[in-house]
């Protein structure tokens, strides 16, 4: 959707938010691991929280009706699952001071993926005419290329881990590869000039999340991961991109006063 609805101000706020989060995380990392962990966990309250609020607003606007309505309802499911997961992670990390993997948080993280996949299918549906077989094949190959080493790394991990932990570790790369296909299609459409930047933000956010998950897997394998690791910046950026993507839709489909014949008739009925 290469429309003329892009607002330079929205882009400015987006760049400011991305740079701001990057700067805060950099400063926190310089201050020490404990501060970094606290900062990251605290940032993971308002960022997914904002996403939940924005997704509820857009889903309410579409009243869960129509193709867009169904898509945004699924997005509420995703935002709510990941928000819950982040809060459980925070409690394990800051309150119980234990390793949050594996925990209840993983169930909510994984529960978000079916919502995300179905949402991206509905999100891309209006663009199906612009999606060629070549684009689908390219996106699928890229997803498989990412999945193979990730699966290998997850499987080749410490043999002392339980079957449950192994299943969880393997679930993430598989789920990531599945959601990566529609997300990459969205990004390819952006580079082909078929869709505008704000529209493609949701797809870019998914790609960023997948990259972050791969980074998390690699750093977890060599035990170098801690909450607030620079790889977490990608998760935070992904929430920002998601939020701006949803916000741009709220801006486009804002409520209007009745000024048309049919709207006046609707009010009279």
């Amino acid at each position, binding site marked *: *959707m290469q429309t003329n609805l892009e607002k330079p101000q929205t882009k400015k706020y987006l760049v400011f938010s991305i740079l701001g989060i990057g700067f805060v995380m950099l400063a926190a990392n310089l201050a020490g691991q404990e501060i970094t962990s606290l900062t990251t966990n605290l940032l993971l309250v308002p960022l997914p929280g904002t996403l939940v609020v924005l997704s509820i607003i857009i889903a309410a606007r579409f009243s869960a*009706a129509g*193709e*867009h309505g169904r898509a945004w309802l699924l997005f509420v499911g995703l935002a709510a699952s990941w928000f819950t997961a982040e809060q459980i992670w925070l409690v394990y990390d800051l309150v119980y001071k234990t390793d949050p993997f594996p925990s209840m948080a993983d169930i909510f993280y994984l529960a978000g993926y079916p919502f995300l996949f179905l949402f991206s299918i509905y999100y891309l549906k209006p663009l199906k*005419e612009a999606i060629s077989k070549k684009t689908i094949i390219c996106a699928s190959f890229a997803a498989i290329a990412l999945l193979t080493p990730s699966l290998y790394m997850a499987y080749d991990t410490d043999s002392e881990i339980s079957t449950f932990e192994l299943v969880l570790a393997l679930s993430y790369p598989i789920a990531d590869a599945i959601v990566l296909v529609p997300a990459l299609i969205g990004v390819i459409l952006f580079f082909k000039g078929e869709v505008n930047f704000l529209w493609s933000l949701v797809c870019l956010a998914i790609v960023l999340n997948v990259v972050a998950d791969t980074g998390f897997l690699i750093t977890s394998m060599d035990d170098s991961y801690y909450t607030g690791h620079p790889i977490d910046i990608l998760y935070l950026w992904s929430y920002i991109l998601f939020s701006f993507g949803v916000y741009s839709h709220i801006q486009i489909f804002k*409520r*209007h006063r009745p*000024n*048309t014949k*049919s709207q006046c008739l609707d009010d009279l009925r």
Partner: protein
Amino acid sequence: MRCNSIKVTLFYIMPEGNCFVFDATNGEISKALVTLAVEKTLLNMGKPVLDEVQHRLFANYKSYIPDCYEHPEYLKNVLKELYGNCYNNIVQSIKKNLEEFITKKPIEHFLAVISE
């Protein structure tokens, strides 16, 4: 030309059971069909999409959806504004809804202009 002068009685039954009875020419019937096809397509996407298109038609051209029958370019421009290069998918959907009536000249013209 003679066909256009034939009056047809239309019954429009509203969801609440109220009923309008009015006479319509062939041109008016085609206009109603086009309006319904456009509204149905946009409603399938979501009520806010229909609202937004109606709002932009009014804001840009002081027109309503039925007016797009005479000025299909208004609808085309608004859809392009909203959906950019991908508005074709919506046009395909409108075409599908008007499939049965595509042989009617004015409807054919309407579809040709929005598909250009």
